[in-house]
């Protein structure tokens, strides 16, 4: 039924370096370049030849003769110090500071619990931070209907280095306003998270009054420190070239099976995810339906809401979502005064001013008015 003939012996012969017949299957083994011809990632290493890069792009060859362009200016020590915020696995970059587990718990409950749940248990769509067993990492939930358990990847079961934890909290958290915690506060939160994960330091449990310092943190070895490979710390990037140049390390093949190849059964979609696609997929070519203009979307409080509050108030697992009339009705019923108080002073999972200490009381009230106007 094809208009083309199925076999093209002539062109196949050019590509193949050998045929193999395994259990009746006809296979073509492909030619692979030597390590010398490859880049650090096992990919083809392209060069400029006769002014052409990779055989396709013409390039300016004058630039090779230029030793220095001398653009830009020298960075100052202050600029480097201010921006050098990383903490490497060998602890390069870790600043001084200290904080206790108890302080960390308090800070956690103020800044983190609304997303990561009590005791780092997760449950609101954001990562679970504690719990699980390292032994679970061997679990495979292969067939969704098998009832098997998947691995549990938390700080304690999976992360190889505590340096990552300090770095992550300092520069990435709290999610809506990172770079707002002092170094001492970061130490406290890290102490609390390590204690939740039952990490010991010098054989000592991290009890409530345990004070984590730079020296103590640098002694931490995470339970899964040896759980990662290839060992680039020891061998440098060169080992990756070897690893990535051999596709058998990652399930990719070097043989094209052409005839009588092994196959499997046809598995259809049983548990679809299509329903929650937003908006639903359609390939229709028509005019868009008239949508109501979003009143005041550019107002000051709309913008403040977007910047300061929407990380939680657009996620129904965390907080009542703006525009959700059902969720807001009982709250609105309590009266504006109560809503203002709760928003400014905090209430249950809602931290004072949503964790935005920089907002004035008047701004918070304005945002509350905006949310109410959108949700009734």
């Amino acid at each position, binding site marked *: 039924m094809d208009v083309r003939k199925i076999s093209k012996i002539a062109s196949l012969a050019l590509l193949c370096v050998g045929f193999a017949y395994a259990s009746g299957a006809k296979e073509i083994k492909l030619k692979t370049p030597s390590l010398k011809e490859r880049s650090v990632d096992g990919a083809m290493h392209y060069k400029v030849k006769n002014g052409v890069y990779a055989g396709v792009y013409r390039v300016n060859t004058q630039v090779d003769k230029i030793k220095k362009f001398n653009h830009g200016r020298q960075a100052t020590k202050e600029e480097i110090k201010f921006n050098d915020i990383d903490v490497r696995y060998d602890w390069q970059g870790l600043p001084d500071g200290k904080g206790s587990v108890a302080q960390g718990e308090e800070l956690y409950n103020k800044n983190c619990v609304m997303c990561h749940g009590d005791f780092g248990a997760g449950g609101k*769509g954001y990562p679970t931070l504690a719990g699980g067993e390292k032994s679970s990492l061997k679990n495979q939930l292969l067939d969704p209907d098998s009832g098997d358990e998947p691995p549990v990847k938390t700080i304690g079961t999976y992360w190889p280095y505590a340096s990552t934890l300090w770095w992550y909290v300092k520069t990435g958290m709290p999610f809506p306003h990172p770079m707002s915690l002092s170094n001492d506060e970061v130490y406290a939160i890290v102490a609390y998270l390590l204690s939740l994960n039952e990490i010991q330091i010098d054989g000592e449990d991290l009890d409530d009054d345990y004070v984590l310092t730079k020296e103590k943190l640098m002694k931490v070895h995470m339970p899964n420190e040896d759980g*990662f490979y290839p060992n680039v710390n020891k061998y440098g990037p060169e080992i990756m070239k070897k690893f990535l140049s051999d596709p058998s390390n990652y399930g990719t093949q070097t043989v094209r099976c052409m005839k009588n190849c092994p196959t499997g059964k046809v598995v259809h979609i049983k548990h679809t995810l299509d329903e929650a696609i937003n908006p639903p997929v359609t390939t229709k070519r028509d005019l868009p339906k008239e949508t109501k203009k979003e009143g005041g979307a550019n107002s000051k409080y709309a913008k403040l809401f977007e910047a300061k509050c929407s990380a939680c108030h657009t996620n129904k697992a965390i907080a009542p979502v703006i525009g959700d009339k059902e969720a807001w009705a009982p709250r609105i019923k309590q009266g504006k005064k109560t809503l203002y108080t709760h928003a400014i002073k905090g209430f249950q999972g809602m931290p004072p001013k949503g964790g935005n200490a920089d907002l004035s009381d008047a701004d918070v009230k304005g945002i509350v008015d905006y949310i109410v106007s959108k949700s009734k």
Partner: protein
Amino acid sequence: MKEHNKKVSVSSRRGFFKKIAASAVAATAVAPVALSAKDDALLKEPEWGKKLGDPVNKHLYGMPSPYEHNVIRRTHELLSSGDFYASVAMCPVHELEGIITPNGLFFNRCHGGVAQIDPNEHRLLIHGMVEKPLVLTLEDIKKYPKESRIHFIECPANGSTEWRAPQFNTLQFLKGMMSCAEWTGVRLSHILKDAGIKPGAKWVLAEGADDSHMGRTIPLEKILDDAMVVFAQNGEALRPEQGYPLRLLVPGWEGNLNVKWLKRLEIGDKPWHAKEETSKYTMLMPNGKAVQYFWPMEVNSVITRPCPDYPWTHLKKGDIVEIEGLAWSGHGKIKGVDITFDGGKNWVEAELKGLVLPKAWTRFSYIFKWEGKPLLLASRAYDEVGNVQPTIDQEVGKMGVENIYHRNAIVTWEVKANGEVNNVQIRDYKKEREMIKKDAKEEVKKWM
């Protein structure tokens, strides 16, 4: 869908598999308009032929036709960490033609929202093991000789919902975490001439200026080979979603490494092991150990016509049509693509068409006579380094299903007699389970 919010990451959650009947699969495909004998489009003067169009000063930045309003990125609440700030908007791959993705449709993955940066206030800082630490403004960077190259960027989690079983019946969500553009910028090897690299330097930390301050470790060899700092895509400034005003481009490598809103490059002698190299973007293998770094995106392909979104329901028996698709590899150029009609038992060669560029989308084509017989249609790409796209059994047998990233197994469409197209998988769970059981401890040892 509420129960899904309680779960953690894309493939480690069991709730990901929603327990509903297969019959509830949403019909998303729209049959193309078939011409009937009653077609009178050419027997009347259309409205737009009888009045003036828009004046040329109406849209000073051009917009697509309003009829194209459904050609957009789309989101899904499961493909996020609880909100739409650390999340992804999928590229409508099923709607694209050629190998260039329009800037407004380029997939958008970010970890702390799309930063809106004032280019006048943006600086690139280069420091660490260099003779002269540098501060560069955008104007400084644009003084260096520029290059333009076409490369895809693909998130390593592309297709991660499909490890255990097929779940999406739309190409946009099967493969939409990738796009391909022409990028313009400056090779880092030029800029680093001015900084002067000290002996012993091996690694580079690249960090963004946005809320997530995302840092990633990249070997210096790659940075000096073909990495660029880019400020333009498809002829205009980067879009904010792509890191305006400056992003790193590491051709062929994990999307995540192409750090957006690039602010800082630190040169060092050791890897950093950042959050996206430890807690995430690492591949947990069935033996309980994880591959920590996996840089290139492997050889891959998918048939774009037909696909679940664009089925063959409008064809009649005997129609001669083109089967078309995309192939790509982070290891180099695409060498060829094979096609199967029987679910992978027998394969024939398709033809490549258009530009065949390294680390870029490449189109393939096969002319086919549709006889209304059911097909199990799939493509399989192979690249310049001799890597061949694996079957699901081959890939899962090695990698298991818990590593989330770097899924490049063959994608199969079930084409029914009526022309409907569904995403299916050709696999043998029993065989996979047997393959996975093989302990790989010895294998890990040699890399330690």
